[in-house]
């Protein structure tokens, strides 16, 4: 990891340091501070959601009811999903965007710095509301993270009202964050940084931000209709008044499907930086990568009903959504092909970020293939709501999104802290996570195909062995994340001094500034050729 380039000139750095004390974090308008806040918050939520996952796996270690009440089990699955999606994965990507996008495009900060602070600080309040529902009468939301009506309306605990307002605040946070990112990318690029020279992470976020602005308001709309049904006597999701519970699913998944790409496109961007760096080659097929992401984004608006094949769609709907879904494999395949081709004949080294990146390519592809299986409507009638679905989306989210976030954190940590990370501990963390994740989620394919339904605290005896294996894997994976926490904290505090170009093959403006990056970078924009 020695860098060839020893340039440590901090381009356009003015000597304004951060404020001191807690006020620095509460009142900050600095994109690096806000990026750090997002990342720490995301880590806290990742551990919180992780504890809930371990409670689920502990209960499922053996058949029968041992540890928790079935009602509480349902609250755990619901809260685990909500916290991981809205509290861990999304804020982590926004944090990375805050830290990296201004540095990557040569901008002095985000376009709207005060709004940037607000986008972050409403999140802890939203999650305080959401998590406080655990202590309320009737318990926390227990209807699954997809909160289908009428479970979430007619049969919901009273805390659903707080859940609705928490979702509203999270949506505001995402919309404001996305507006800021789009304005930054479109308006703050250094002279000479044309669109087709944008770093791939920036491109991935431009497309993601568009998706966020397009679908978060739809989520706000659907929870508003829930609120009206619950408290104000409307019948959007009640057939007795002429509405339709299936309407809920349509509106929800019109948000929900683009949402899953919101959680993977920035990961694509991160991986597209790490693989070229450690292959010491340029990314293969830059333009096709951009077009692939744009195609995935457009297709994401046309496939939502593949989550609803068993709900009773007209045949023509089943067929349309089946084929449209399969089309997504084409641009995704282009991306996987380009990553592999970037590595082909490169001079590869396998530092921690690269290990996570390669695992991402392999394991995300497995998740993609099980997605293709689920896309086949007649086959989905068997798979629907089984552990096969659980296996599928955890493969794309854990060794997909989460591994990419970890790869990104390890990759950019020297830039943020000025210290090289502990490589041995990083690799140990990688191998334990890699093994743990596969032991956890691979057996779920089998028990899912054999018919074990999701979201149940107890199960038939024939699923016992694989459940026990999965639970062991979950605990390995869960506890090995403490290594990650420890490594990050140690790297923040001390470690071998990192150079400006912390990794030998790293390219891009962010590696031209010193490590740690000065508090203000590019107050005057650099010239990009």
């Amino acid at each position, binding site marked *: 990891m020695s860098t060839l380039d020893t340039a440590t000139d901090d381009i356009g750095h003015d000597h304004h340091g951060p404020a001191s004390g807690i006020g*620095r974090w*509460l009142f900050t*308008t600095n994109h690096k501070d806000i990026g750090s806040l997002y990342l720490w918050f995301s880590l806290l939520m990742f551990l919180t959601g992780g504890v809930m996952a371990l409670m689920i796996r502990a209960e499922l270690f053996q058949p029968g009811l041992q540890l928790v009440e079935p009602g509480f089990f349902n609250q755990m699955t619901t809260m685990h999903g909500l916290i991981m999606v809205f509290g861990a994965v999304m804020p982590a990507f926004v944090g990375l965007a805050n830290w990296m996008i201004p540095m990557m495009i040569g901008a*002095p*900060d985000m*376009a709207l*710095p*005060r*709004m940037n602070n*607000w986008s972050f*600080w*409403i999140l802890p309040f939203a999650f305080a*509301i959401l998590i406080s529902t655990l202590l309320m009468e009737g318990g926390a939301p227990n209807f699954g993270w997809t909160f289908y009506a009428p479970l979430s309306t007619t049969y919901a605990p*009273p805390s659903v*009202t*707080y859940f609705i*307002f928490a979702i*509203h*605040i999270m949506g505001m946070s995402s919309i404001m964050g*996305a*507006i*800021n990112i*789009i*304005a*930054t990318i479109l*308006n*703050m*690029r250094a*002279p000479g940084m044309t669109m087709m020279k944008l770093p791939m992470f920036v491109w991935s976020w431009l497309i993601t931000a568009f998706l966020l*602005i*397009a679908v*978060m*308001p*739809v989520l706000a*709309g*659907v929870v*508003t*209709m829930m*609120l*009206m049904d*619950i408290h*104000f*006597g*409307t*019948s*959007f999701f*009640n*057939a*007795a*008044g*002429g*509405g*339709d519970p*299936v*309407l809920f699913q*349509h*509106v929800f998944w*019109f948000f929900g499907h683009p949402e899953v790409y919101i959680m993977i496109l920035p990961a694509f961007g991160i991986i597209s930086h790490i693989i070229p760096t450690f292959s010491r080659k340029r990314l293969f097929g830059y333009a096709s990568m951009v077009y692939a992401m744009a195609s995935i984004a457009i297709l994401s608006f046309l496939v939502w009903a593949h989550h609803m094949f068993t709900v009773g769609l*007209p045949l023509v709907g089943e067929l349309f959504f089946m084929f449209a879904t399969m089309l997504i494999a084409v641009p995704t395949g282009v991306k996987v092909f380009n990553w592999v081709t970037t590595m082909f004949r490169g001079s590869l080294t396998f530092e921690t970020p690269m290990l996570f990146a390669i695992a991402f390519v392999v394991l995300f592809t497995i998740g993609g293939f099980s997605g293709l299986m689920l896309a086949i409507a007649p086959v989905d009638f068997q798979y629907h709501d089984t552990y096969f679905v659980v296996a599928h989306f955890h493969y794309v989210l854990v060794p997909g999104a989460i591994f990419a976030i970890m790869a990104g954190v390890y990759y950019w940590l020297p830039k943020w802290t000025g210290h090289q990370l502990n490589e041995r501990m990083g690799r140990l963390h990688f191998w334990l996570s890699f093994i743990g994740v596969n032991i956890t989620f691979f057996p779920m394919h089998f028990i899912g195909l054999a018919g074990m339904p999701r979201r149940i605290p107890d199960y038939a005896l024939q699923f016992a062995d694989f459940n026990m294996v999965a639970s062991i894997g979950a605990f390995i994976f869960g506890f090995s994340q403490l290594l990650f926490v420890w490594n990050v904290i140690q790297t923040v505090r001390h470690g071998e001094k990192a150079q400006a170009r912390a990794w030998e093959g790293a390219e891009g403006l962010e590696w031209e500034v010193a490590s740690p990056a000065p508090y*203000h970078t590019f107050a005057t924009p650099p010239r990009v050729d």
Partner: protein
Amino acid sequence: MSTHASYYVPEQSRWPILASIALFLLAFGAGTLINGITHETGGGLGLLMVLAGALLMGGILVGWFGNVIHESRAGLYSAQMDRSFRWGMSWFIFSEVMFFAAFFGALFYVRTLAVPWLGGEGDKGVSQMLWPDFTAQWPLMNPPDTEQFAGPKALVDPWHIPLLNTVLLVTSSFTITLAHHALLKDQRQRVVRWMGVTIFLGITFIGFQAYEYVEAYTKLGLTLNAGVYGATFFILTGFHGLHVTLGTVMLIIILGRILKGHFSSQQHFGFEAVAWYWHFVDVVWIGLFLFVYVI
């Protein structure tokens, strides 16, 4: 991409964290209040939180926007900053478009698929087994279960108040454009006059809409509880009405700023942002008039 040298990055600000606290009070308070009313456990604390949150948020909005206006008038904002605001407002309006799209989507789904299926039509007509006597129609005057959801007795006649409101709102889109043209020519008096007309039209619209709601509830039996027609009617017109109200408040603030001598023919994005918003509200109304009232 010009004038990069002077992008203004503000110093630390206490507004966002205060606004976060206000938003928390509003959200948690609203939840407590609404739950208290529905479950008859009283929501006094919730009401208190909502009021405190609203008061705090009002103060913050004045202070925060005051900051921005001050910075703008001090000449701290470059042309590039202006473009950031323009992108920001454009994408915000796009997000609003998608918010209404969710409700329009619900309306189209219900009237073209869900209600006909309940009436026994098409592929999914089996759901008629639930209420065999139900006949599909739109607007839905007799919901499947009339005990639970008594349908409306009559509907709002589109060719009276709604037509009048359409005329008012479309006219106001023209008058605000006239105000803008006057501003571009630095003709203060005409700006003030056309802004005044626009605000008057906006307030009249809101008044008529309120009158229509009272009529709907007291005479027509068209309520939130009147089945899915009432639900879609009120959520679409209600959110639109809230947006017109917000737009009118913003217009009044802009008028106040004009009277204070803010804005020049070159620099007046605050004015333009509100004008964009007003046009957006107008376009949504055209959609409402067609798909909720007429067709």
